[in-house]
């Protein structure tokens, strides 16, 4: 696995390349930091929560979301086109019978432009290596024991698509408005390591 990105050798090499690009006039000083800030500016788990809440109150939207998430999220003013190219978003819905959980076993692929940076545990080798083999055990360690009758689908986001889990709407929330429902959704719920 390619887990160690913090070595001083690679960091020094990156700094050297950055300095070379600046000295050649190809890059302004600090431009990379500015571009990274721009890339992350709109990314927050609140975006995912808005998508989920809309899907809970509007079954037709939920249907469109599961069929073509990239097109559907434009209805709530969101897009996967925040990076260099638009990435495919795949939304997977939890049901009474099946729970979904997302991992990137090869690195740490995550819908960053939409949800912001991923949590540190998502990038850990422990999570990446174990959740594909024993998702039931890992979810239990997250304090989320699944009933034995619920099947689990693990999605390995190691290629071009990014994933979002659509949690089940909690019981007893029939009176809540869409914005209140969005407040119930957590980042873990969007990855599949929490019920909501």
């Amino acid at each position, binding site marked *: 696995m390619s887990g160690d990105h913090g070595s001083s050798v690679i960091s020094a090499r990156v700094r050297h390349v950055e300095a070379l690009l600046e000295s050649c006039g190809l890059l302004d000083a600090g431009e990379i930091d500015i571009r990274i800030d721009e890339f992350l500016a709109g990314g927050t788990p609140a975006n995912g929560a808005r998508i989920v809440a809309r899907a809970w109150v509007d079954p037709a939207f939920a249907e469109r979301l599961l069929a073509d998430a990239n097109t559907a999220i434009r209805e709530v003013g969101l897009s996967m086109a925040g990076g260099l190219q638009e990435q*495919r978003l*795949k939304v997977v819905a939890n049901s009474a019978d099946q729970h979904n959980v997302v991992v990137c*076993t*090869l690195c740490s692929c995550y819908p960053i432009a939409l949800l912001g940076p991923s949590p540190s545990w998502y990038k850990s080798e422990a999570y990446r290596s174990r959740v*594909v*083999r*024993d*998702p*039931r055990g890992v979810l239990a360690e997250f304090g989320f024991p699944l009933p034995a009758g619920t*099947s*689990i*689908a*693990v*999605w*390995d*986001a*190691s*290629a*071009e*698509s990014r994933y979002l889990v659509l949690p089940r709407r909690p019981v007893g929330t029939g009176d809540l408005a869409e914005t209140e429902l969005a407040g119930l959704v957590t980042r873990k719920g969007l990855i599949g390591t929490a019920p909501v």
Partner: protein
Amino acid sequence: MSTEPFTPGARVRTRSTDPAGHTRLPRYARGAVGVLVEQAGRHPLADDRARGVTGDAQPVWHVRFAAADLFGAGDHTVTVELWQDYLTPIEEHP
């Protein structure tokens, strides 16, 4: 069954060899039999791009495996996104 070997529902076997360079076929999913779920666009092979080679875009598939087939245990499924080059259709003999 469709005559098109790469179509949703078709069974495929993944490449078993360990390539010298970068690949997006995870080790745990090598030499395994899975089912095509849906196509996830078309992209140049990541293995080629990592070597600076610009290849043609090819289909990328969501391929679903039974955990028991990958790890010898587990009642869950694992769905991996794989380039068509990694996959060989399995001929069905009814």
